[in-house]
């Protein structure tokens, strides 16, 4: 080796034998691990293109504006799209203020004691509860009504949009609160201290300084939660939204169905025509979910602030 450097050829350190084998193995492992990483992505891409090829031809204005039907070619998404819009609107109206309020309470106003700790722990545990459990909760409490020792705590709502929205609100509340708490924590303490030092009350500090700084993060979390609620099927089937609806929803107290449930319905029917309908419905659903996710990403990137 020293001879090589004396004669001016470039110095190279090349492993031989056992060490070379270990290095070769290590270099190969990069590609094995990379392929393993990409495998799931490819599986999903393959499945998605299969669905798009299958359902593309069915996608038309008629498909979006026809009521469900026994004949695959006449069936459409009209009632499920409308039910979906009503449901998501109601969920947003209820879940967003509740989530932001809870997060503000936990982060800014709650005294630091065992009860607040319990509330925090409880929220992280609720986030792991399966959606079907929320479904039977909604069934027992909102749809059938809830009596405790002879007192009616919740009236029976039946399988209505309101019952569905309440169920989904409870379901997405934990993840929305967690995201909001994270966003509020990103606002540096110096902002809070500065505001308080200048004589602002705690609420003025929160309203004028904490919230404006945390809103992009909160919005991101809220939109992702909405996307999850929009794709939810099991919980809504449990509360009785698996229904044949051939009218346009006009109030929160009507029975309803949604696009994911319609997709489920078509998936379980044996005729090939309904399989095509399900694929077309999935294109609609995925467009919305991917769109919501993109909006969330854009908000996160656009309003990313370094304090």
């Amino acid at each position, binding site marked *: 080796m020293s001879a090589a450097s004396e004669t001016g050829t470039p110095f190279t350190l090349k492993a031989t034998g056992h*060490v070379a084998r*270990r290095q070769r*193995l*290590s270099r190969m492992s*990069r590609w094995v*691990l*990379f392929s*393993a*990483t990409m*495998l*799931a*992505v490819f599986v*999903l891409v393959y*499945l998605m293109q*299969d669905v798009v090829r299958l359902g593309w031809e069915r996608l038309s204005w008629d498909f979006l504006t026809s009521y469900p039907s026994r004949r695959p070619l006449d069936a459409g998404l009209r009632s499920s799209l409308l039910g979906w819009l009503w449901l998501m609107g109601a969920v947003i109206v209820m879940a967003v203020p509740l989530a932001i*309020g*809870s997060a*503000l*309470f*936990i982060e800014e106003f*709650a005294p*630091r004691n065992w009860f607040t700790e*319990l509330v925090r722990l*409880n929220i*992280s*545990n609720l986030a*792991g*509860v*399966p*959606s*079907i*459990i929320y479904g*039977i*909760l909604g*069934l*027992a409490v909102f749809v059938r009504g809830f009596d405790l020792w002879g007192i009616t705590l919740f009236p029976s709502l039946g399988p209505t949009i309101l019952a569905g929205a309440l169920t989904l609100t*409870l379901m997405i*509340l934990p993840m929305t*609160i967690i995201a909001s708490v994270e966003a509020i*924590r990103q606002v540096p*303490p*110096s902002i*809070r201290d500065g505001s*308080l030092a200048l004589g602002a*009350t705690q*609420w003025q500090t929160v309203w004028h300084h904490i919230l404006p700084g945390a809103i992009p993060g909160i919005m991101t979390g809220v939109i992702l939660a909405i996307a*999850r609620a929009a*794709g939810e*099927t099991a919980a809504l*089937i*449990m509360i*009785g939204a*698996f229904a044949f609806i051939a009218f346009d929803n006009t109030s929160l107290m009507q029975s309803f169905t949604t696009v994911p449930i319609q*997709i*489920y319905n078509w*998936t379980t029917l044996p005729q090939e025509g309904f*399989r095509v309908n399900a694929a077309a419905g999935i294109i609609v*659903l995925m467009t919305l979910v991917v769109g919501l*996710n993109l909006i969330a*990403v854009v908000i996160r990137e656009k309003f990313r602030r370094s304090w």
Partner: protein
Amino acid sequence: MQESLPITGASAQLRGAELERAMRKRWSKAPFERLIVLSLWLCGTVSMITTVLIVLTLAEETRAFFMEVPLRDFIFDTKWTPQFEPAHFGVWPLVFGTLNVLFWSMVLALPLGLAAAIYLSEYAHPNTRRILKPVLEALAGVPTVVYAFFALTVVTQDILRPLLGQDRVPIFNALSASIVMAVMILPTIASVSEDAMSNVPRELREGAYGLGATRLEVAFRVVFPAALGGIIAAVLLAVARVIGETMIVAVAAGSTPQITLNPLNSVQTMTGYMLAIGLGDSARGTVDYTSIFAVGSTLFIFTFCANVAANIIVKKFKEQYE
């Protein structure tokens, strides 16, 4: 939880008892602020009420179920045939349906998820990681009814049946559900494990490199063992998701409760049974109605244990290097 709060000197003092008392006095002077704090407090209690409602309704209806079906039968009977005469209510066939799908989805997702985590944490360029991680996480955001469609119509009908033979693969089978479930939970395993591996201090890696270890050896013999706590937590979170997942198994795995771990059998999981009853309109007070709460309670206990264990391990693990 509180230890992890970034409390700087100033705000730590602010939270001091004296100032807190002063702040409270100021609220009491402003009725508007008091009203706001009260309404925020009300928001904060909603999550507590949710938990109480879940436990109450599950307990109440499960009690009603056990008034008609002895607990002994539920635990020791080996048949689940609520629709037939004589009706059997042994929960094990449903539990095994869940375990079947859980086992086979883990067999597929564990190696792939951990490989992805190791790649992202130890091999990938930071830019690659910044793109790949959200892409992987997007897999978890696909609505489960879409995965259900994939499992039944694509995996079973277009892949498994032509590949393994029409007569060997029933139209509803645990394998198709497990394959799709593996794709669904892979990001959970990969993302949480990757966080744990990234948290392993750099000194450990550099020490190993300095001793002449290759990248592969560092990843598997240094980083992996050091991050084991977080990896176990990631797997437990994924387990909880598989146990609670409903649409995929309801659509693709079938409706035949039986005690088997054969992936080519048609099985019914706990969630699959609950959904099947939910599709009908069973009246309150019937055994059908109360049985979904009894099965729901069983499911809740399973997922609760997995989640709590994961949370404890994550917390323990976090403290290890901080």
